[in-house]
């Protein structure tokens, strides 16, 4: 930006002073456009222009994909019809209750990087998959609070499960269970949807209960709620959590912020200030957010109308979805059609980029990272997003103020 301004000042002096030839003016103009383009490009996060999809066409089970986790060369996906293992780019195995999985619908998957164990939160309990065998924990057979497990997360030797009746924690060294719910913790609502960790805190997203943060060392709680209370309007912007129905929570160790995806917008908290986003005045594809993830300067919101990425530093949004997303239904997801990328600049201007491949569906349920690549769980399959390489030329439409 500074380089552009200096150039402009110099150019202005030259033009006003009439010391510039016509050729020089043409060259100057071209340089200005180039610099502006370069500046815009620097503000735009890397674009994902290539999508490899896993659907019923290539062995993936039918139905929604709720979660995805990566462990080395293995990708685990939780779906409405089982737990899927993808290895070396191919569907290797689909696990169902017939194989020992606790429940058919797998809402969440987490891999313990220490032990290699895979934990699946299902609607029939919690499953641990280790070296070919399942071991299950249910409400009746263990200290798991409830068999509807929405989210599972690993924190050292602890496995945490967010369930419909509170949060359960298993100490894998001792086999001891601890339950956090309205009986012993400040849960206004026991329905826990999501859980994430920093080094010393547990962040819990509750459906209708806001965000609860538990200090792991000192054992105290802090509650974050919507200052608008139960009103379905945002009266107090950036003064608290955007909404009490929190579907997902993520902690970013780089920025030390936690992000809450709600059904009515996106909230970020840096420990002092809230940063809230709504569709009406940002590039967020939809206020209905199923999941949120964050790393570095990136915040990813998995919405019902596409996958939106916020570059927090530059306040630039990028949304990915199938080009025909408004007409899409599940029957049409077997083949990947073209996709669209909507870039929303800080000033509100939008750019549209078309890509030859796309996500299989606009209803995004979750995502995760694999190096520079991303994996996206959608209502129509799993998608592997690969960022644009330098050689690739994306199709680019002219900028407009389209919403």
């Amino acid at each position, binding site marked *: 930006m500074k380089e552009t301004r200096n150039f402009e000042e110099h150019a202005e002096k030259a033009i006003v002073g009439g010391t510039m030839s016509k050729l020089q003016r043409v060259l100057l103009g071209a340089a200005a456009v180039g610099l502006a383009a370069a500046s815009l490009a620097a503000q735009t996060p890397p674009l994902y222009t290539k999508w490899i999809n896993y659907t019923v066409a290539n062995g993936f089970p039918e139905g929604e994909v709720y979660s995805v986790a990566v462990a080395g060369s293995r990708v685990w996906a939780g779906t409405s019809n089982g737990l899927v293992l993808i290895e070396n780019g191919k569907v290797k195995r689909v696990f169902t209750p017939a194989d020992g999985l606790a429940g058919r619908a797998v809402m969440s998957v987490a891999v313990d990087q*220490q*032990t*290699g*164990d895979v934990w699946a939160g299902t609607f029939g309990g919690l499953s*641990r998959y*280790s*070296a*070919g*065998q399942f*071991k299950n924990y249910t*409400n*009746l*057979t*263990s*200290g798991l*609070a*409830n068999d509807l497990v929405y989210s599972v997360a690993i924190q050292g*030797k602890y496995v945490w499960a967010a369930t419909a*009746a509170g949060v359960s924690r298993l100490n*894998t*060294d*001792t*086999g*001891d*269970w*601890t*339950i956090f*719910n309205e*009986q*012993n913790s400040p849960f206004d609502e026991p329905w826990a949807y999501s859980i994430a960790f920093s080094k010393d805190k547990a962040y819990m997203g509750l459906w209708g209960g806001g965000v609860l943060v538990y200090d792991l060392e000192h054992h105290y709680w802090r509650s974050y709620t919507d200052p608008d209370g139960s009103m379905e309007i945002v009266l107090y912007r950036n003064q608290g959590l955007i909404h009490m129905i929190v579907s997902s929570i993520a902690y970013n160790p780089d920025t030390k912020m936690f992000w809450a995806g709600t059904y009515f917008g996106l909230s970020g908290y840096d420990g002092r200030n809230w940063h809230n986003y709504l569709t009406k005045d940002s590039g967020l594809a939809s206020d209905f957010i199923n999941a949120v993830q964050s790393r570095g300067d990136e915040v990813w919101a998995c919405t019902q109308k596409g996958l939106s990425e916020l570059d927090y530093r530059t306040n630039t949004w990028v949304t990915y979805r199938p080009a025909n997303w408004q007409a899409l239904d599940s029957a049409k997801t077997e083949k990947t059609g073209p996709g669209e990328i909507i870039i929303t600049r800080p000033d509100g201007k939008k750019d549209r980029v078309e890509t030859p491949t796309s996500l299989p569906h606009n209803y995004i349920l979750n995502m995760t990272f694999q190096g520079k690549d991303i994996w996206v769980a959608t209502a129509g399959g799993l998608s592997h997003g690969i960022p644009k390489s330098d050689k690739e030329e994306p199709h680019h439409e002219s900028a407009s103020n389209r919403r």
Partner: protein
Amino acid sequence: MIRKDRRRALLLLSVIALLALVGGSGLRAASDESLRISQDSDGVLARYLNPTALKLSPDGRRLFVVCEASNLVLVVDTRTRQVVGRIGVGNRPEGIALSPDGTTLYVTNEWSNTVSKIDASSLQVVGTLKTGWGPAGVTTDRAGKFLYTANTLGDNISVINLSTGEEIKRLEAGHFPEYVALSRNGKWVYVSNLLAHTAPPEKPPVSQLTVIDTERQVVSNRISIPEAIQLRYIAQLPANEGGYLLVPFQQPHNLIPLVQIRQGWYLTNGLAVIRPSPSSGQQATVMELLLDDIDRYYADGFGSASTSDGRYALITASGANTVSIIDINRLNRLLSQLPPGNPLALAHRLDSARQIVIKRIHTGRNPTAVVVSPDNKFAYIANRTDDTVTVIDLQQLKVVSTIGLGGPKEITPVRRGEQLFFDARFCYQGQLACASCHPHEGFEDGLAWSLETPELGRDVVENRTLLDISETSPFKWNGLNPDLATQDGPRTAMYIFRSQGFSHDQVKDLVSYIQSLKLPPNPHVNKNGRLTEAQERGRAVFFRTTTNNGTIIPEHDRCYYCHAPQTHYTSRVRMDVGTSTRFDTVKEFDIPQLEGVFMRAPYLHNGEALTLEEIWTKFNPDDKHGITSDMNKVQLNDLIEFLKTL
């Protein structure tokens, strides 16, 4: 004549006096210490040793002997066959490993939850490492950088960084992991699990050999060993002989009525021959074959070793005081004739041993570990209840020496009882000893058994612990045996051993030993003895007198009424708690003591409750087993946290 009569009279009086002391009430246990201590001829108190693990130095000149009852590691010079060193370690040492460079010994202390690190030259303990609960088997990796311990009570394996001395992770094993071996190529650590997976009582047992990838330090395979329990020491044949793992096991036919013992094949003993998978994720192949003969059984396979030239394998039978020498060529020939993919092709045949076992050699009492010298000339076998080591010449295949380890010469009644406990010769055809169903010195095996009852096939009952039971009579799930002498005397002879059984004096000794058995330290209890918040809340639930809405709970429905704390959490009567099934001939069952309950899954008289939770979530619909239907999940969880501390 008169002198003889006087002597007889005195002898008779002594016997009468002794009977008066023991009759009716049974022998009372002395303190834990005195039951394993006798006085030697100089009047010096000494402990029995109970050697259970062996390790040879790389040059074969020193034999390290782990002595679990005396908290010692002895050093034996194999040339002189004399004890030349004694090293004091932690509480109840079980396993031993040697660093690859031979400079450091690592000894697990099962009741201290530690590993003693010993300088192999100076024989000094130079450090102590913390582990998980109940460490037994141990090995280093090939580079000597990491240590792996099998934690019996934790059902996991500790991985310890030897540079820092810190545990870096714990990996889940099977049920009661006990023995560990490093593969010959250093790529894998194998862990054998003593007990089968906890499963519904009507299912045949399935055990697990856990395989750890040493590069990634994760569990890469869980090899199922069907119809087997009590997997013990692991030996690996050289690669040119197939590279098989050889793991002794016991094959119980526990759901067949016990009367089957009269026809044999009730409790057989065999060898799992496992071809490990070449890489993670690939299937290993398992073949089970029996080492018993059709008319003679070799109970409780324990130690396993092979010569480095692949000529022989040696398997000790700790209940038969025997080591079986297996010809590996013959074993390979037998295996080559079998169709692949059926691990049980030989598992029910009693003719394998005569094809592969070339000799059975008598050892001392209760042989456990076996190791082979690096030059393949000698094998050394630890005899636990003799405090000796048998030396076998492998060229002549005979015993050439028995090394006395210096245990007390006097044999106390408790010691005699201990020897009897592990001895299967009192059972018809030597099929089983007490220890066969109560492994690890008195634990329960986690299986349900069809013991003798008025009606065959009914009253299948869960095995019970023998630890700390001296004040918990009556015995048997139906509570009909008033004391241990009744339990172990004529009843055992008639219904279990199907033989003459023990003599009267032997019963007394056996009872003395059983009464000496103690629970291990409870890892759920903080070292300072204070309960956690959850455990305190659970304690309050246990002692509650009202329900959540304030209704008074009748006294006989309160937890502490039947599980009285002052008598080991059993009121020592029989109760109907609504758990009898159509397969039971009785409705009332002896109230089990709750001490040590955390390690006794499965639960209830028939083992139907696989976890503590299930006792109330599945098997107490009418609140007959305590008033629990009003409890919320947190209360139940807290109650269980408290019960685990008992």
